[in-house]
Structures are given as C-alpha cells and as structure tokens.
C-alpha cells in the first residue's frame, strides 16, 4: 500500500471551498483526509458516495468533499440518510456528525438507525465540546473539566458511545483518534464494508475552546495526549459494556451490584479503547433485508398467480 499524496486526495475535494473554515490545527481536517483516503483505497467513485452531515463544525465537512452531499439540520443526519439509503440502496451513504450532534439532539435518531441496522457508515467526531457555538458542555465532556456553560467545572458523567452502540444493537463499532491517522483510515475502510450500521467514533481535538479552558491550548500537544488517553484494550470497560439485559434471555437474571469490578470502573473517568471494539460478522443491513423481503413478496404473489395490479 502506497500512501497517497495530498495532491491525489484533493481530487475528492471541492477546491473552491478550501481552505476550510476550521481553526488552524483542528483534527477535522485530518478526519476528512482519512475519509477520502479510505474511499480512494476502496475504489469508490465520487458519484457513488453520499455524505450526510449534521450541524456544527463537523457538519461543514460535507461541503468540502466532492460527493453527493447534504448538510442537514442539527442531529437529524441519520434520519436524512435513512431516507436517502432506501431511495438509492446502491449508494455508499456516510453520515458525519459531531458528539453533541449525534448523541445529544440526535441521540434518538442514532439509536433508531442502529436498531434498524440501517446501512450507513456513521462517523461521530468526538471533541468533547460544542465548537461552533463557542465551547459549551456536550454529552461527552469529561467530568471535572471546564466549558463555557460549566465555568465551575462539570459534575456530570459523560455519555459513552460504545455502550450506546452495544445496547442499541449496532453491528460494528470502532474507535480511533486523529493522532493515529493510518489506523483511522483503515477503520473507516472496514466500516465502509459493513452491511448495516457501522459506527466509528473519532476522538478529535478542540484545542481552541476545550483545550484553552482545560490546559491543553496547543493542537499538537492535545493530539499527542490522545495517545495516552486511549488504549488498545481495556478489559474492565469491555466487561462493563458487554453486560446487557437481554430481552430473550433464558430465564437467567443478570444482577450487578455497585461493588463489582465493572461498576467500579464506570465511576472512574472513562478511559477508552482504540481500534475495532466489536463486530457482528453476520450483520445484514436493513435495506438489503428490506428489498429482499419485497422480492420474496413479489415472488410469492407470482407463484400464487396473482400479478401485481
């Protein structure tokens, strides 16, 4: 594999919109690069890819990339993408959302899309803060950090996308950072090949707002920190996240008390895994199942000698 030069990747961009409006050193540019790189390696045509984005700094990305692009309303990208995917099942639909976008206002759409296993590659950029509106707390803002709506520091436990993805039923969840660019590209490539709702959480930096208020004002320093803050595997977290109450359980009661390892780990600040966190190999996405179901209905009708009327 030869790494591609910016020159080639810029073919996937809309030159008249560059440079981006993102702040200097913002990880969103690195993510955008990785996405187009993954699409390049996958040999996808620009015309076969749709990028649906929400609102926020991240939402601007669909404007810069030269795909079929929709810059939608706040939090609703998965719902727009659902409609698009069902109208054009052949299209590779990518949604790109920020953390507040995906998990706060769009939490319901995200869960519903997971539950349906809609064939969407969902990329959630997690920078722990609302960037475009000026640094307010988001659902992923870590405990005890400062934001413009928590000048006296946050006391809320943050949302963990991983547990949401597991409980919601997504078949694929991976986590990457903007520090680990090559692995980021590879994870996106893998997500593109999943049939169903593939979720990639990318830890990114907002050194301008989050960093400045939390002693990490320099982009390179904040990105380098991501190496320490994410780890390749965290058995405690795995144990905690793999604890589901299965509706179809065979009568066994899962009882967890607050003294267990899993509960202890959850009280501590979240350390995060990196890489593919889980993958359901047999996943078949909604649109494929839906259209094959329609196919079956038609076949049955023909068999019964009742042509469509």
């Amino acid at each position, binding site marked *: 594999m030869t790494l591609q030069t910016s020159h080639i990747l810029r073919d996937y961009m809309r030159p008249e919109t560059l440079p981006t409006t993102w702040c200097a050193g913002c990880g969103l540019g690195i993510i955008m690069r990785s996405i187009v790189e993954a699409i390049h390696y996958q040999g996808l045509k620009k015309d076969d890819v749709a990028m649906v984005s929400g609102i926020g700094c991240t939402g601007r990305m669909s404007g810069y990339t030269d795909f079929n692009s929709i810059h939608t309303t706040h939090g609703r990208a998965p719902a727009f993408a659902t409609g698009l995917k069902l109208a054009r099942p052949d299209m590779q639909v990518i949604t790109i959302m920020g953390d*507040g976008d995906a998990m*706060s*206002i769009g939490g319901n759409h995200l869960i519903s899309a997971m539950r349906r296993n809609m064939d969407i590659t969902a990329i959630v950029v997690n920078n722990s803060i609302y960037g475009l509106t000026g640094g*307010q707390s988001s659902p992923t803002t870590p405990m005890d950090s400062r934001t*413009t*709506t928590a000048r*006296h520091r946050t006391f809320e436990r943050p949302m963990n996308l991983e547990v949401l993805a597991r409980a919601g039923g997504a078949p694929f969840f991976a986590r990457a950072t903007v520090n680990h660019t090559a692995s980021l590209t590879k994870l996106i490539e893998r997500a593109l090949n999943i049939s169903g709702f593939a979720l990639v959480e990318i830890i990114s930096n907002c050194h301008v707002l989050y960093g400045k208020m939390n002693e990490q004002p320099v982009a390179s320093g904040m990105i380098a920190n991501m190496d320490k803050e994410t780890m390749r595997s965290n058995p405690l977290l795995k144990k905690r996240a793999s604890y589901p109450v299965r509706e179809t359980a065979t009568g066994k009661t899962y009882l967890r008390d607050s003294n267990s390892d899993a509960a202890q780990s959850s009280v501590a600040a979240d350390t995060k895994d990196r890489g593919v966190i889980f993958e359901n190999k047999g996943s078949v996405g909604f649109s494929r199942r839906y259209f094959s179901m329609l196919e079956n209905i038609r076949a049955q009708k023909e068999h019964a000698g009742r042509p469509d009327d």
Partner: protein
Amino acid sequence: MAEFEVMYGNQAIAEGAIAAGCRFYAGYPITPSTEIAEILSDRLPEVGGVFVQMEDEIASMAAIIGASLGGLKSATATSGPGFSLMQENLGYAVGSEVPCVVINVQRVGPSTGLPTKAAQGDVMQARWGTHGDHPIIALSPGSVQDCFDLTVKAFNFAEKYRTPVIFLADALVSALQEKISVPHSSELDIYARPKPTESPEDYKAFAFTKGGVAPLATFGEGYRYHVTGLSHDEKGYPTEDSALVAQWWEHMHSKIEDNLDDILLYEEKQLDDAEIALIAYGGTSMAADHAVAIARQQGIKLGLLKLQTIWPFPEKRVKKLTENVNCIVVPELNFGQVRSEVERLSAGQAAVVGVNKADGNQITPAEILAEVTAQLRNTP
C-alpha cells in the same frame, strides 16, 4: 437608585431574568442566544437557582414547564431552529396554562440560515407556530435597556396571566453593547406567584374565570391537581364536553384580551403632528428612531410607533394611527409580517409600505428615509 452598566443585550436578558426571579433555566446551545445560557450557567447556581443543559430544545421546553409547575420561575433561550422544535411543548404550556418565558433570539432562516446574522422572521411563528388558535404574548426588545426591562415584564406577564411569554429578541440587540440603567431590586416591580387561598378540595387549578386566572398551586404543597394537554374542565380533568371546551376558550381569550391595557407596551415618538409614521420593533426600531431625528431636522413630519408588545397586536393604537397619518412605513427584517397586520388594520385609510430585507444586513436610517421621501413625493 439605579446603577449604570455597560452590557451586551444577551447579558441584559440574563440579568433581567435573574432580577425577575427566574430560578430555573433549561436550554441547548444555539447561536446567537448562547451567551444567555453561558451567563445563566454561571449566575443561577450563585443565586440558588438551577441551570441544566438539556439534550435538545424539545426537552428544554418540557423541563421548564415541569420546573414551573414545581414552583420555580423558568425560562429557556433559543434561536429559530430551536424555537421550531419547542412548538410542540409550547402548545402544551399554552393549553395547560403554565407560566414560562421562551427567549428567541431571531436569526436569518429558514433552517440553519445565517446563524450569526439578525432577522425578524419569527414574528408569525411566535403567533401561530404551535397548532390550534390560541392567545399568546410576545414582547420584542428594541434596545439593550429593553432587553433588561422587558425581560422583567415578560416574567411578570407569564406569572400574571399563566401563559408562556415569547421574548422575541433579535441578533441586532442581543449582540449590541450599550450602557443601560439597571434598577435596584427595590425599584423593580416583580410579580410574585400568588398562592391559592381556598381549601385543596375546593381548589380549581384551571378555573374558567373571565379576564383572569386562578392562582397556580405549587406541587407538593398539598394542592393536588391534574395537568393535561387535553381539553379539560376547571379541575384539570380531560373532557370532551363542548360546552366546557367553549368556556375554556372564552377564559383563555379573555385573560389576555381583557388586560390589553396592561399587556400592550409601545413607545411613541413625535406622532402628535406626524403626517407620515414609522411602525418598528426590535433591533430595527433603533434605525427608525434615528430616521425620525434626521427627518425632523429636514422638516419632514415623521413620527415613530415602536412596538414592544407584538402579540397581542396593538390594534386600537395602530388603527388610530392609520386615521391620523397619510402613510405608514414599516421597516422590518423580513418580508412584511407586521406590515400585513398594519395593512389589515389600515383597511385603505393610510398607505402602508414596507422596508424589507432578510439578507443578514441591517436596515439603516438612510434606507428608511429613502422610502419616506419616496412616499412623500407620491402623496401630494
């Protein structure tokens, strides 16, 4: 003794809310209203209030209804897209007569539009945004001073008439920095929520009084009652009895309409001898005010009616104005939402024209004057 302070509009709204007794705020960040949330996240815990950043605007609106029923004066602040999301629960607050204040700092729409640029396109959304024909109160601040004073009024109206009050600010005033006089708390007229005097058994939380409202009992103080979005009787229990529903409507309309003298706020400037008048509101009224000053220097008999209460619309005053002047010019950052109201009331008495745009730029005094002089040429 009032103190003088240099403040931004959003800051004046936040401080006005605290002064008015607001002790609960639930919101979601959205430009250009975010500073209100930021300031209140700082200030509310200091005065014993609660600030919660909710997961979206739908939840924010629901939470302030809950807090208000729990006895706290509550508010949320948002901008166009968030205001659209609040409409469902805003209707709930209207129907179940829960006092609260919804601050909408208007920006250019529709949809995401121009997030940082001012517009006045939500005038009709404030009136008709939620479904059903309901009365509503909407106030619009024309300066940073108004941001403070009218916020206090908004909370008073909300409590007095048990209704959501929409505070229709715009990015022109919210981002403006101005020196204002901040009244001392002893000088402020704050309406405290009255407590019911009757026994819990006799208490009718939704009494169909004419021209007024029953005191709203706080949950947990022994007055247990039912709150619903369904059409209800005086105790709050759902009903489909059309006679009761008709009584309810009469009560809902009369509590606002019988108190127009209190609710309708406007300022008049040199209207006594005016031959041509401006009707302006919100941030645009600042340019209109200046246009009057310049016109008077040039000998043009121009006057200004600055609306602070937009809904209910000051019909009587505007109708009288249409009888006294030849022409009314309505500058607004939309394509004629208030102008159409004025036209309706004028019914041909006076010519009504607009100065309209919604491209992110503001209306300048020069543009208003150009329209005024054009109208003067038209009328002999």
